[in-house]
């Protein structure tokens, strides 16, 4: 009996110790669980933070970031992609990548694992025009069934700059070509001027000589009349008169007079044009010079007249009492030439039968005004803010450098403190109005003038 009691005591003691061991293990496990729970919470928070950071990075990326499956379907897209393509997340998921980048599947199929660049591909948004993109990415086992990760960079602005730069380069080349032609023209004008000078002088001599020959013929006619009754000179007189009649001498002298007079007038025009060309091609002084604006405009009309033939009627409407204006003559001349040529080109484009270019002048107490108008198609409203920008032109290559109006604005506004703007003028589609301040003669110049005249 005692032995059995000892066994039960031993059993009870073992059970008690087992319970204590179980409680100890329970405490230990509880502590481990608590620590692991804390570690899990910390990891969860870190993952959440990391996830937020990743989401923030991908959302703020200027590029569309898209993952694509081995079946070439979209698996994920960042916010930039959703906004750029006008699709929300659910609309983008699982659609073929070709739906937004036509032709991309074929290019991806040709890739080997690793990084890749793809150019000359377009993104097609739900709304709006396709846009060019450059794609960089990686092919291979990215994550689960994701085979490709794509970073699509919108290069619309870059392409536009490339096109603009190319156009500017072409325009600069055109400007250089025109500059070379201008230099050549200046040389030609200089060379032509000398022979024209003596042709003019010789024509003057011919006119004087012809007047003398005419006087001599008149003397002969008087002599013939006096000796006409004398039978001793009848034969000689008849021979001279017959010859004169045969060649129609009287009329011929008159015709020669008229021809030479016309030639002298023509050569004077040529000389005027050559002088204008020389003046135009010469760099000119930057000093203000007293200028007859009407006369300056007439010179421009003469230079540009050839271009208007068969295209437009060039008319002037001058205020004849306009006072001389102190201005940089070369600059004003160039501005008016540019505007008149533009006006003629505008009329030519419109191709109307009765196209007109009008140049009108007027003045007030403080300003001189020049208006150059045409009956072309007019300038669309959306372009009116751009036409004064450098390198802006609507003309085809070889016809315009895009510098004319920018230069004109610079000369008028910056050099002369005047204004150049587009205004409405009845009967015309486009009118450029130049206003120049009537500057008082500088005191220094008055003093110089006074000193020059001093004894």
């Amino acid at each position: 009996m005692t032995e059995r009691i000892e066994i039960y005591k031993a059993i009870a003691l073992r059970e008690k110790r087992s319970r204590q061991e179980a409680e100890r293990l329970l405490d230990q496990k509880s502590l481990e669980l608590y620590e692991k729970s804390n570690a899990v919470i910390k990891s969860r928070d870190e993952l959440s933070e990391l996830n937020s950071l990743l989401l923030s990075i991908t959302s703020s990326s200027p590029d569309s970031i898209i993952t694509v499956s081995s079946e070439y379907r979209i698996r994920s897209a960042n916010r930039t992609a959703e906004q750029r393509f006008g699709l929300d997340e659910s609309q983008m998921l699982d659609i073929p990548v070709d739906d937004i980048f036509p032709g991309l599947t074929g290019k991806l199929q040709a890739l080997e694992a690793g990084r890749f660049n793809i150019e000359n591909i377009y993104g097609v948004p739900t709304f709006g025009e396709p846009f060019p993109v450059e794609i960089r990415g990686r092919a291979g086992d990215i994550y689960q069934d994701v085979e490709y990760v794509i970073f699509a960079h919108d290069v619309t602005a870059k392409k536009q700059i490339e096109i603009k730069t190319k156009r500017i380069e072409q325009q600069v080349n055109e400007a250089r070509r025109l500059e070379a032609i201008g230099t050549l023209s200046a040389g030609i004008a200089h060379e032509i001027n000398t022979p024209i000078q003596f042709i003019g002088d010789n024509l003057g001599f011919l006119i004087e000589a012809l007047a003398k020959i005419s006087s001599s013929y008149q003397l002969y006619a008087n002599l013939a009349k006096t000796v006409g009754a004398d039978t001793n000179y009848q034969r000689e007189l008849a021979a001279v008169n017959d010859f004169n009649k045969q060649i129609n001498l009287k009329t011929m002298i008159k015709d020669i007079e008229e021809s030479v007079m016309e030639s002298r007038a023509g050569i004077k025009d040529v000389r005027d044009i050559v002088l204008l060309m020389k003046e135009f091609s010469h760099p000119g002084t930057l000093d203000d010079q007293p200028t007859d604006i009407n006369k300056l405009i007439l010179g421009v009309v003469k230079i540009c007249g050839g271009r208007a033939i068969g295209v437009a009627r060039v008319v002037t409407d001058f205020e004849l009492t306009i006072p001389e204006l102190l201005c940089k003559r070369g600059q004003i001349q160039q501005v008016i030439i540019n505007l008149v040529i533009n006006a003629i080109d505008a009329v030519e484009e419109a191709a109307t039968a009765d196209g007109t270019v009008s140049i009108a002048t007027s003045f007030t107490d403080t300003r001189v005004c020049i208006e150059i108008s045409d009956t072309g198609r007019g300038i669309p409203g959306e372009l009116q803010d751009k036409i004064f920008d450098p390198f802006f032109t609507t003309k085809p290559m070889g016809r315009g450098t895009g510098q004319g109006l920018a230069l004109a604005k610079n000369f008028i506004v910056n050099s002369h403190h005047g204004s150049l703007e587009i205004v409405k003028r009845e009967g015309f589609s486009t009118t450029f109005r130049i206003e120049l301040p009537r500057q008082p003669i500088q005191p220094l110049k008055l003093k110089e003038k006074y000193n020059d005249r001093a004894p």
Partner: protein
Amino acid sequence: MKGVIFTEFFSFIEENHSIEFLQETIEHSQVESEGVYTATGTYPFCEMGALLGSVVEKSGKDASELLKLFGLHLFGHFKNSSPNYFVGIDNAFDFLATVETQIHVDVKKLYPDAELPSFDIVEHTLDKFVMIYKSSRGLGALCEGLIAGCMEHFGETATISSRTLATDPITKIEFILQK
């Protein structure tokens, strides 16, 4: 070795003998822990060897036979304590196939220090199942008892034959189950 094997072994001895027999066995085995075990603890495998030897000595039963019977008992405990592993499985071969891929994986999650045997599935058809048991403990008979318990649970019968492939340092036993 996990404490649950010791505590279930004690239950098994109690059920088949008596609580007094168990206490005498423990004292006779002179294990260091003095038989103080909890299911969630981990204890030296050599204590199980000593306890088993003590039972064999006191009862006069064959050790292998004892282990097979203990395997049957252990499977019964397992199905009661972990019914979730049986959900969706309707035959013994499919269940045995999940031991290595699910049950041992979960045990490792709970007890990273647990030293578990491995079961390599060699053949798995509707009427034949071949697996290789690998363990440093050489408890092939316990494994056979567990397999028998599994067959019994699903109400299936099959001949279970085994072939020892290696014993040192790792015991490798091939079990062939043929319906």
